[in-house]
């Protein structure tokens, strides 16, 4: 196989777990949507290495084991810092933004397969300021699930547009929290560009954002929608921690997701990110810490999509009962996520599930959707309370209907080819 047909392997070196997670998620989203296949490379040499522009010695040694003569670099650069880029190298701002990474990937894909640069491909090292270090989790500190702290279960929280979005003003027992400095890594991000959902914990170094909180938030909405018969809540207060048990099940045995310290939604990268600001809500029903216009409006359907795209990537993570029968009450709005619906099998899986009741295995087999996409679809529908899950009944003989052709399947196949909607795999 020629090198041009091989996937482009992307690795992170010297970055924190949460950054690697962002890159991995982005590549997962890209997979199948581009002419070239892209994969995240956990170990060994890679074709593209994303690395801080400033290195510690240990990072440099690690990097040496991952590069090859043709490897290209994407350097993460703190805001306001300029570096000299050697031939073929790219630079993105830190913290990572999906839009910038995508632009880099576009440029690099056009140059694939890479040739050794004519100059010397050295890593650009800057002395000041130092690049961001790995996350606290990567440094060995432990982030406990929020719900494990009984003091937090009734804590008042507020979401604002500020980087320190979800903030505890005081503990339920009335004891105040000391003021925490804003995480310097977030301070240069334009207001409104990043939605951070988490808790400011004064005992730690600034923002301690936690994606699990978001999951609890989405689950809380889901339970509200269920209780209101599918209608969306209007201005209701919800306790995000009340339903946190679900998130514990989702992440059963998956401690690695706790390494992600913030949930980034870049409105540039995500055209629909603007929808995040459509719904105003206050959590826990207590007076908000940040008042008035600082409260943001959040479209929780979009949060469900974001959440599923990032965290629902295999069947095990869905925590569905074995042999459960699945049925979908309605279609998701693919109009806001056309890129997802165009992935092989996603549309078919949705149509099958809205018209039939199927086991996960049967759905997977019939739709030929890859596991990650199917898990994401089911995750979105589950979070939105559109997915019914029933215990499988003992098999009984089914009286089969007579086979009767509708007469349209042939023309549909032809029309798909003519309109460029063919689902035949290349």
């Amino acid at each position, binding site marked *: 196989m020629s090198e041009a047909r091989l996937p482009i392997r992307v690795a992170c070196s010297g970055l924190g777990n949460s950054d690697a997670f962002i890159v991995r998620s982005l590549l997962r989203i890209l997979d199948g949507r581009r002419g070239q296949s892209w994969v995240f490379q956990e170990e060994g040499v890679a074709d593209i290495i994303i690395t801080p522009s400033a290195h510690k010695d240990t990072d440099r040694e690690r990097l040496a084991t991952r590069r090859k003569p043709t490897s290209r670099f994407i350097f993460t650069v703190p805001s306001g810092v300029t570096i000299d880029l050697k031939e073929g190298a790219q630079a993105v701002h830190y913290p990572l933004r999906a839009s910038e990474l995508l632009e880099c990937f576009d440029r690099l894909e056009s140059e694939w397969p890479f040739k050794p640069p004519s100059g010397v491909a050295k890593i650009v090292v800057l002395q000041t300021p130092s690049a961001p270090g790995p996350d606290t989790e990567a440094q060995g500190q432990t982030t406990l699930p929020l719900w494990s702290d009984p003091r937090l279960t009734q804590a008042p929280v507020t979401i604002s547009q500020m980087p320190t979005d979800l903030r505890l003003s005081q503990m339920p027992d009335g004891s105040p929290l000391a003021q925490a400095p804003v995480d310097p890594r977030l301070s240069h991000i334009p207001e409104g560009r990043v939605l951070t959902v988490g808790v400011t914990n004064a005992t730690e170094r600034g923002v301690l954002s936690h994606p699990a909180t978001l999951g609890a938030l989405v689950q809380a909405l889901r339970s509200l929608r269920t209780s209101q018969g*599918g*209608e*969306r809540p209007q201005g209701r207060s919800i306790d995000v921690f009340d339903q946190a048990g679900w998130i514990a099940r989702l992440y059963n045995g998956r401690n690695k997701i706790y390494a992600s310290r913030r949930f980034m939604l870049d409105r540039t990268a995500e055209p629909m990110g603007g*929808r995040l600001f*459509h*719904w105003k809500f206050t959590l826990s029903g207590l007076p908000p810490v940040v008042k008035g216009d600082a409260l943001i409006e959040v*479209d*929780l*359907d979009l949060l469900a999509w974001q959440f599923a795209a990032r965290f629902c990537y295999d069947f095990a993570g869905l925590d569905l009962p074995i042999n459960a029968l699945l049925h979908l009450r*309605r*279609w998701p*709005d*693919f*109009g*806001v996520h*056309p890129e997802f*619906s*165009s992935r092989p099998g996603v*549309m*078919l899986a*949705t*149509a*099958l599930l*809205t*018209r*039939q*009741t199927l086991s996960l295995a049967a759905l997977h087999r*019939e739709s030929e959707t890859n596991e990650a996409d199917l898990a994401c679809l089911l995750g979105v529908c589950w979070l939105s309370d559109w997915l019914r899950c029933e215990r499988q009944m003992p098999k009984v003989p*089914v*009286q*089969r*209907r007579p*086979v*009767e*052709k*509708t*007469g*349209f*399947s042939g*023309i*549909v196949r*032809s*029309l*798909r080819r*003519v*309109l*460029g*909607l063919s689902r035949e795999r290349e």
Partner: protein
Amino acid sequence: MPQEYKLLFAGGMGVGKTTAISAISEIPPVSTDVANSDREAFDKALTTVTLDYGRITLPSGDRLRLYGIPGQNRFSFMWGMLEQGAMGMVLLADASRPDPFAELDIFLKAFGRLLRTGRAVLGVGRLPSQRGELDKYVMRLARRKIKIPVFSVDVREKKDVLLLLDALFTQIEVIEEDYRSGAPSEKTDKTHSGTNESTV
């Protein structure tokens, strides 16, 4: 012998039926546009009366005729003829209209039989930013036992038109699969096979 098929685009005035047909038709849509005499209701110089018409010819010689059906009640006598033998319907709605649901109801009632087969899709344009707007359309359909894909779209974008068609085609394929597998499905209209001559 080449066969003829019909695909219907339905919706009230100004929802984008002509635009949607233009996006996929091999010929410029043949529109029966006239000066809009109801500028107060809808600020549009021309509007379609009776029908829009477009066409796609397949390599086999088969033809798909595309009909845009406006919502004027005085032409409702044609709707039954159009529905007969149609392979499916792309229903369009404009959420910015004063009463979009009333307009939608006209089509839900007139084409209920076809819509309940599942061989249809609803695209809603100009959705306001408030949450839950699309859900209202889904529930409106559900009350009439219509379960079809409902997407927020902008039919000025060809990709959105193709998205609707992709969903419609998938529905049609799965309905056929229902028959093959004997799996539970919605009640399906069985009078819709392709015809040698278009009925309209």
